């Protein structure tokens, strides 16, 4: 009873506040919109979370692949991984990327990587590993959705994945077992690089988005006057 009374008082107070500010806030529906800021922050946190997941997953998977892939100083040349999107980019180029392009590159990259990862999942024999891979895939799926959400919030269209370029993963018979493992190695490595890059991308976006959000508020405030 007390709680309800408290709630009703709280609601009443809230209502009063809203009514008081009503003349000063003509664009009420726009203040309720959280904007892309929180979702960018969330996407950034998610990349870090995925990074953390991948670290443990990669360790497990590389051990599963066995030597030399699980050796710390194993650094093979990038062979047979041409289909994987490259995360590395010239710093100047990266800096000059606009938000839409930056988000689009991220979205496309993770779409490809996810597709490859699912193939990895199908291959894996160990149940625990499969569970980890499945969870990582789900998380990556969440990242994709998150990026899509940010893009939608910023009003950018989602990139159209062309049917031809749809990365249909198929176990190539030409691949030797070692080369296959090499692909898996590079997939994980490229994923990690992309997660690092994405963290940077979203951190940059986050910083970029905060002042405009403040400006909007300020603008609304001035508009009210």
């Amino acid at each position, binding site marked *: 009873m007390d709680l309800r009374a408290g709630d009703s008082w709280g609601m009443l107070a809230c209502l009063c506040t809203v009514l008081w500010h009503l003349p000063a806030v003509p664009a009420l529906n726009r203040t309720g919109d959280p904007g892309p800021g929180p979702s960018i922050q*969330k*996407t950034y*946190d*998610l990349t*870090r*979370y995925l990074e*953390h997941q991948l670290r443990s997953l990669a360790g497990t998977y590389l051990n599963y692949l066995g030597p030399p892939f699980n050796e710390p100083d194993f650094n093979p040349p990038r062979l047979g991984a041409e289909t994987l999107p490259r995360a590395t980019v010239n710093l100047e180029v990266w800096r000059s990327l606009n938000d839409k392009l930056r988000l689009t590159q991220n979205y496309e990259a993770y779409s490809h990587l996810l597709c490859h990862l699912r193939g990895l999942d199908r291959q894996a024999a160990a149940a625990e590993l499969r569970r980890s891979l499945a*969870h990582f895939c*789900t*998380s990556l*799926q*969440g*990242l*994709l*959705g*998150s990026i*899509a*959400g940010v893009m939608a919030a910023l009003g950018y269209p989602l990139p159209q994945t062309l049917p031809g370029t749809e990365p249909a993963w198929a176990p190539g018979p030409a691949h030797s077992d070692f080369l296959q493992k090499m692909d898996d190695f590079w997939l994980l490595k490229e994923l990690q690089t992309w997660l690092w890059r994405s963290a940077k991308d979203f951190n940059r976006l986050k910083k970029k988005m905060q002042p405009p959000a403040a400006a909007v508020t300020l603008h609304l405030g001035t508009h009210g006057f």
Partner: protein
Amino acid sequence: MSAPWTRTLPALLLLLTAVCMGELLDPCGYIVPEAPVVRLGSNFTAVCVLLEKCMDYFHVNAAYIFWKTNHETVPRAQYTVLNRTAASVTFTDVGLLSTQLTCNVHAFGQIDQNVYGVRVLSGLPPEKPTNLSCIVNEEKRMTCQWDPGRETHLDTNFTLKSEWATDKFPDCKTERGSPTACTVEYQAVYFVNMEVWVEARNALGVATSEHMNFDPVDKVKPVPPRNVSVSSSEELSSILKLTWVNPSINKFISLKYDIQYRARGTAAWTQIPLEDTASTRSSFTVQDLRPFTEYVFRLRCMKEDGQGFWSDWSEEARGTTYEDRPSKAPSFWYKVEPAPAHGSRLVQLMWKTLPPFEANGKILDYQVTLTRWKSRSQNYTVRDTKLTVNLTSDRYTATLTARNLVGTSDAAVLTIPACDFAATRPVRDLKAFPKDNRLWVEWSAPREPVSKYILEWCALSDKAPCVPDWQQEDGSVRRAHLTGRLAESTCYLITVTPVYSDGPGAAEAVRAYLKQAPPSSGPVVRTKKVGKNEAVLAWDQLPVDEQNGFIRNYTIFYKTSAGNETAVNVDSSHTEYTLSSLTSDTLYMVRMAAYTDEGGKYGPEFTFTTPKFAQGEIEAIVVPVCLAFLLLTLLGVLLCFNKRDLIKKHIWPTVPDPSKSHIAQWSPHTPPRHNFSSKDQMFSDGALTDLSVVEIEASDPKPLPEELKALELFRKEKLSTGGHSSGIGGSSCMSSRQSLSSGDEAEAASAQSAASAVQYSTVVHSGYRHQVPSVQVFSRSESTQPLLDCEERPDELPPPPPPPGEGADPPPRQQYFQQSPGPAGEDPVGPGQPPAFREVPAAQGPGERLETGGLEAALGLDEGPPKSYLPQTVRPGGYMPQ
């Protein structure tokens, strides 16, 4: 139970029908609907359809259908015949949860035949689940729970549904046992919002909860921090550093912490302010701790922004702060023991070990310094907590410090006064009372400033000596509780001594109990004295060990064997009591109870009997009775004496003695007789003539001087000459004298007798002297009866009886002379005289004279001597033969 029955019922009916029909395997009809589920309180209609072949066989149609629910026939009012083969039944407001409904027919118009049966279930559609909440246990799956709403009475499935904006997650179906919670199969993905809701579904409907949209990371319950360790600092004894390892979730979310600690042995946790630990960290330094104290720590964490749940508490970690110098001087006191030699004394200094929170470390030893007035001090290092020193009778100052690894405590100073010091200034209003299972002591401070108080106490017992324990309290303290282990039902003697700067003050003592109990035994009562109506009861005070409390009062119960019990309350200060108003000669039973504040205890029963008579009562009765008896006897005897004559007259009337009878000579020769008398006097001792007169006057109460007696003699003789006679008395007396005189003067006596014998007798008419009687002198003896003589004077028998009329008179005369030196003159009633003779003077009374009769030869007495005198001289020899 009922569900399998529901299922087997149609089969049974089928079998039954088949058996009855002999060949039919199909049922005779069926009910629509087959498995009805009805909402509680709603209407329900079932239709029974008969098959044609059965109708023909049993000669029935739909009108023959009747319904039963749970073996009870449904009233026909609820039936509706739809057509020839089908009839329905309608129930309104279905209330039963499970009903067995059967369709029956009257086969051949009279045999009840089962056709078909169904089980009607009723219940409610599910309510919308509420209060949906989810928790994501780190490293585990997400679990959600909700309130399922009202009871539906039906099988209701709850399904937890979850989805992303882009994807759906697999449904989570609850298990039968727990329809209010479900744990999803997938691992929730942090930082991606998901939507969760619950769907409840049963045969009567579907209900869906509110959708809940959240980021799983905001519902997370982290794993508690691990590897918690505690380290101390040598520089600061008041701090401990707590370090731990954060859960792995800390790699992508920030945490805040909740740290608690407590000193070992205490139960309450101390909370470190949450704002001090509101950000991610892996160590924390706890301050303001006590030195050399072990502390226990625990902590938990949650997402920094407060969304989600606190983790479980970590494992407890222990650490001990570093030592510090003792923060307080030990309690310090002394006691003087009996001195071994004169001029010195043994003083035992004693102190208490510091409690850990004051010792602040391990106490290594104690330093004691003793300073005599203006002389060098002596130092001692002691590991024990007491030190016995031999001191002179002077005043000393003792100081005590405790030392640990880090430093030395402040000094406790104690002044040991000189031997002749008289302690004064005690505390005032000392009292002790139990409270909260502790024994408190309270006092008022003396007027002078007190440096500290010493509380000493010991258990009082008859069996064990008083071994005191003690404690010290600050000078500002006015009340304190005894810190030692105290027993209940034990009397404690508590002493409070104020200690001044110049030495201890006078001690005050009080007794108290931590908790009183009824006495262990009751007082043994006994009688001190039992009276007829009262008894004095006495008892001893109970021993201290048996009192178990302050004896507040006694109650004495006493009763007779038949009567009611009477109770008397007696103040505890008494040890005896007098029961009054008791009934005499009665058995009383007495028992006695002693009461403390907590109750009483009866002593053994004691009986006593009150005596029939009070002490001295018998004596008081017997003695007066005896005395009265004695008095009565005496009175009787006196009376007998007084009334002797009367008695005598009645019993043995006086018979005149013929031997003494003579004719009185009334003649004018009286003067010669006087001469005779004087002759007589001359004859005998001249001085003694008067005494012979006294003898005659024996009855006269007043002894007279001799001259007077002489006069009296004259008077009497005149009287006797006037016809008066005290004759018989005189004669008697003379006779008696004669008898007493025995044979000494036998010769003289015989001479007198011979002289008197001349005249036989003189008869004097008894009469009043005024009537001068004519005295007839008989010359003959009237009687010579010796018997009478014997009778009258038995004691005269031995001497040979004188001749009648002679022997009587002369001897008395003679006897007078003889007896004159004796007491006869003084004591007229001589012991040797028989009472009869003593009466004679009394009979001299005028009234009696007549009665006794002039016949008496009283005159003869008077006359006798002169008469007898003559013959004596004449014929002494005549009597010789006598």
